[in-house]
């Protein structure tokens, strides 16, 4: 019986690209392209079993071993700090974690900075490294709205092209960290399915375009 490797893929455009890399690396699963309501896709011959999960959940599936490996954005890894191995930078979904504010905003270091973000852990660490006193506002979406309505002075968010920001008169003015998709592995799976994971890893390495 062949050992199956469970792979958690992030739903959405990034996930499609990631799957294409797996396919090109010799781990295809044709049934995944069919339009159906199945949740799990299996290719016994290649020894892989794929499933789509919400991008921010990939790390949880992998950390708890429901998936042996998965692909997650560096933003998620920095925010939740899951206990996993980070085996490969796939150079996909590249963007950056940045601080943005209204174009006319000037930082006044005498005041507490009000920061709105989905990524509270990243924002906290970034500002505490600067010893800056901040008022952290956790939002779950539409972060750009916060500075426009005066809810916050700045936002900490992912910036890809900057178009959304520009259209709303906002501007990124500090990059915190560059972001891209990473191949992660559960620590125990890495021991007990080493051969299988290593062969997927080396296959994917050949597909990375840097």
């Amino acid at each position, binding site marked *: 019986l062949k050992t199956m490797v469970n792979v958690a893929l992030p739903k959405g455009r990034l996930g499609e690209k990631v799957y294409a890399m797996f396919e090109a690396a010799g781990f295809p699963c044709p049934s995944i392209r069919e339009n159906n309501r199945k949740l799990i896709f299996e290719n016994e011959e290649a020894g892989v079993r794929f499933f789509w999960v919400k991008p921010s959940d990939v790390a*949880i599936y992998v*950390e*708890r*071993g*429901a998936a042996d490996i998965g692909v997650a954005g560096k933003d998620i890894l920095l925010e*939740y700090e899951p*206990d*996993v*191995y*980070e*085996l*490969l*930078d796939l150079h996909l979904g590249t963007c950056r974690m940045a601080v943005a504010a209204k174009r006319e905003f000037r930082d006044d270091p005498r005041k507490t900075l009000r920061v709105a973000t989905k990524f509270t852990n990243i924002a906290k660490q970034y500002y505490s490294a600067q010893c800056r006193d901040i008022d952290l506002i956790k939002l779950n979406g539409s972060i750009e709205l916060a500075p426009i309505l005066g809810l916050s002075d700045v936002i900490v968010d992912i910036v890809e092209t900057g178009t959304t920001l520009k259209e709303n008169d906002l501007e990124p003015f500090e990059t915190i960290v560059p972001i891209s998709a990473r191949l992660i*592995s*559960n*620590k*125990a*799976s*890495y*021991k*007990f399915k*080493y051969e299988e994971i290593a062969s997927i890893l080396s296959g994917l390495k050949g597909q990375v375009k840097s």
Partner: protein
Amino acid sequence: MTTILKLDEKIAFSLRALYQQYGYRQFKMSKFEPYDLYMQNKEFLVSDGIITFTDNDGTLMALKPDVTLSIVKNYRSDKTPIQKVCYDENVYRNNGSGKQFREIMQVGLECLGDIGLYELCETVMLAAKSLEAISANYVLDLSHMGILASVLDALNISESTIPQVMQCFADKNEDGLFALISSEQAEVLLPLMQINGPIASAVKQLKSVASEDQLYTLEAIAAYLRGFGMEDRVYLDFSIVSNRNYYNGIVFRGYVDGIPSSILSGGQYDKLMRKMDKPAKSIGFAVYLDQIELLDQRSTAYDVDTVLLYSEDQNPTELAAAIQTLGSESIFVLREQPERLRYRRLMRLMNGRLEELENHG
């Protein structure tokens, strides 16, 4: 008797027997400790999230989040050259994604005093044997903090970058390593990061980077393990980076197939001893039993073995006699047939006679 024990209880007992076989003495501890002890050595603990309360005179107390610190605190050098202590205790933490209060069963041992090569070998062997008691398919990852430290030293990597380099090692993050330091430096570290294999063969790859002393230690451990037939189960892997301020030398972490995270962790913590003013060396480990449930595959097909029905006017003496004749593993005595109870057989006592209504084998 064994069937009533849950898997984690069974393992706790077999580990206690194992440690006592090698001269370890059980140590029973109080569940409470002044918070000071943990505050001063916060980084030593695997996790933060200590549960605290105040005692009657206002001292801040903690529910024990860890056992090692208490054992070190109680160590007295004048007693014997080597003190061997084992324990099984519940520890309390407030962690996990939901920040919920958790009680974790921890079994482990500490060896304190004049630690030599033999004690290192024996402790690693006992760690491997502890894992073996849990599952035949296990891996004990072993690393040497001193080797990594001296390589980093030789590369002149600044003190402020070292924690990030260590994090890359912990994550097996090769790309991160190259982004962090010059590629010449990274090329030197890469082979160390990639080492992953049984200790006896992997140690050969360290010839150029490790000191003679360090090599001798690792080879001795490999040879000792061979004597127990477990050298293939102990891997050299530099992704175990324990806190540099407390640990030195050998550190290790254990995994068993079926549990997604490590269940054993330990190492040499001479630096902690020094910090706590104890003139001795030390090595020890702890096994966390809170996840063992995941391995317990025994299904409980029935809630109860036998259900015995009786009628209102039943003579109590006859009922007592019937219960004793049945002599069942577990028995549920009821007036009416239960709806949601899964049972193996259903018996009825009518007019002093036992009759079987259902039997599911």
